[in-house]
């Protein structure tokens, strides 16, 4: 059995009377390529928010490499190695692509609180950010404003910023959302080029992308675990087909 990176135990979250997540047990192995699927409103994004520390749970705990991090704030979790992307772009729209990535790299290496040296003095930050853009094939757009990029490229910047934190665990919240299906291979291509040591949890509605990328799939319905297995097992599971895959056209 491979080493565990992230684990949740009986993780629950209520919003008033609505139970968004109910006693959810989940395990993410080191270097995992794990997909979380489920119908709209199944609690997937709530789950990501709980893992990232953007929301406190109502009950249950989150463990990172065996250590309980339930009480840790979002910023602390980033330092411990959890990074996330957003379903709707959350970018520094007025800044260049390079500046977007530098922002997270500078934060990680501790350059950001520097008051009296210019940004340009930290060539290590700029250098590393450029290499990251090279890896995601974004270097050609490095000097462009993010707001001027086509949407698909902006989605890649989302991923690039998260990778700038050098995470052990990467949470991708619908990386291909809003991207025309003809272009979703760009996102898949970028995800496949991410370092293998990073454990990746991805939420995605594009089933084609999920089944090509993920080695393991968890199905969530109504805030609870519905099924888990290899992509093959999930695809062949009649109940899953009934509640979920049947609705999505897997062309």
């Amino acid at each position, binding site marked *: 059995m491979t080493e565990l990176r992230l684990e949740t135990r009986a993780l629950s979250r209520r919003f008033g009377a609505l139970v968004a997540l109910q006693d959810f047990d989940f395990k993410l192995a080191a270097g995992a390529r794990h997909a979380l699927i489920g119908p709209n409103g199944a609690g997937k994004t709530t789950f990501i928010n709980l893992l990232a520390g953007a929301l406190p749970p109502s009950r249950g705990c989150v463990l990172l490499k065996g250590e309980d991090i339930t009480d840790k704030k979002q910023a602390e979790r*980033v330092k411990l190695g959890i990074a*996330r992307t957003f379903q709707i772009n959350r970018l520094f729209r007025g800044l*260049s692509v390079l500046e977007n990535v530098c922002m997270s790299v500078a934060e990680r290496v501790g350059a950001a609180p520097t008051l009296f040296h210019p940004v340009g003095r930290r*060539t*290590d930050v*700029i250098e590393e950010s450029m290499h990251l853009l090279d890896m995601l094939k974004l270097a050609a757009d490095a000097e462009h404003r993010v707001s001027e990029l086509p949407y698909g490229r902006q989605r890649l910047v989302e991923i690039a*910023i998260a990778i700038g934190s*050098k995470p052990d665990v990467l949470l991708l919240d619908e990386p291909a959302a809003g991207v025309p299906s003809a272009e979703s291979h760009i996102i898949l291509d970028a995800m496949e080029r991410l370092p293998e040591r990073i454990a990746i949890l991805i939420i995605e509605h594009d089933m084609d992308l999920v089944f090509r990328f993920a080695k393991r799939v968890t199905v969530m319905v109504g805030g609870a675990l519905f099924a888990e297995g290899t992509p093959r097992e999930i695809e062949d599971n009649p109940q899953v087909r009934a509640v979920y895959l049947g609705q999505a056209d897997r062309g």
Partner: protein
Amino acid sequence: MSTEAVPAGAATTIGRTDHPAARVLIGRHHLRWWETLPWLAAAAFYFLFPDYLGFGTSLMITILFALSLDLALGYAGIITLGHAAFFGAGAYTVGLLAFHNIWTEPVTSLMLAGLAAAAVGLVSGLVLLRTQGLTLLMLTLCTMALLQEGANMAHDYTGGFDGLPSLDIAPVFGMFEFNPLYPDTQYLYTLAILFVCFVFLRTLVYSPFGQSLTGIRENLLRMHAIGAPVRHRLVICYTISAALAGIAGGLWAQTNAYVNLSALDLDRAATVLIILILGGYGRLYGAFVGAAAYMTLEHFLARIYPTAWQLGLGLLLVAVALYARNGLLGLSAVIWQRYRARRTTS
């Protein structure tokens, strides 16, 4: 995972810093030729308009005040309508110290004014900066109103509504006296203080800290998600901004030799906001352009139409708000780009 971080300098030899985008970042803080213009203009003004040095002095004070607002509002995106709280805190610090003959040395008084305003900024910031948007706007307004009412009620010390007149300010460095009729000293002294504060502020906004403030303005949620201590940064920014506003207020008190409740007025806070929007916020020089345009217009319009001068200003502001979203500086940048584009195509 900072242990995996590339050590400083180690990666610089690989040579990805020659990319145009990297070069832009590396050279962004370099001084450009036109950045000397405001200072050349200030020097020329001294020799060309000796009769207007009083106007020049109050213009520079307004520039400094607008710069302090630019740091908070333009860079960090802190929505405030109460920045005169800090201007007033600085002005009253200088005023109280001088009026009660406690301390009249101008340069150290200004430092104290900056410290006092910074303290107000820090304490109020710790509370206010938990909020955003309209709530924040209202709370900044309340802070200012509280201070103004406080100054009004502490009549025995502050003179209340009448303020503190005829402040006795010691000569600068024990040599240069403030003369109300010939404000040479006031002008040069204010210019020197503005220059020092500007160099400080310019260094700050081009630093990684300044960049992270821009990040907070551009996308708060993302800053949280990359692990930035957002509120901590905002409080530091707000405190520094308050200190600079306090220095501007202190200068105002020293060069006018009086303090009154107008230092803490909503009118003052609104005017500086208008000036910054007029010039263009988040770009440092907007404060210079905005203050110069606003005060020059005010000066001449008030002369031509003493009764209705605000109408002219109002029309200008409507035009800027409608057609130049990024202020006069933003407008001139757009015109410059079009001109260059036309030249390259023809």
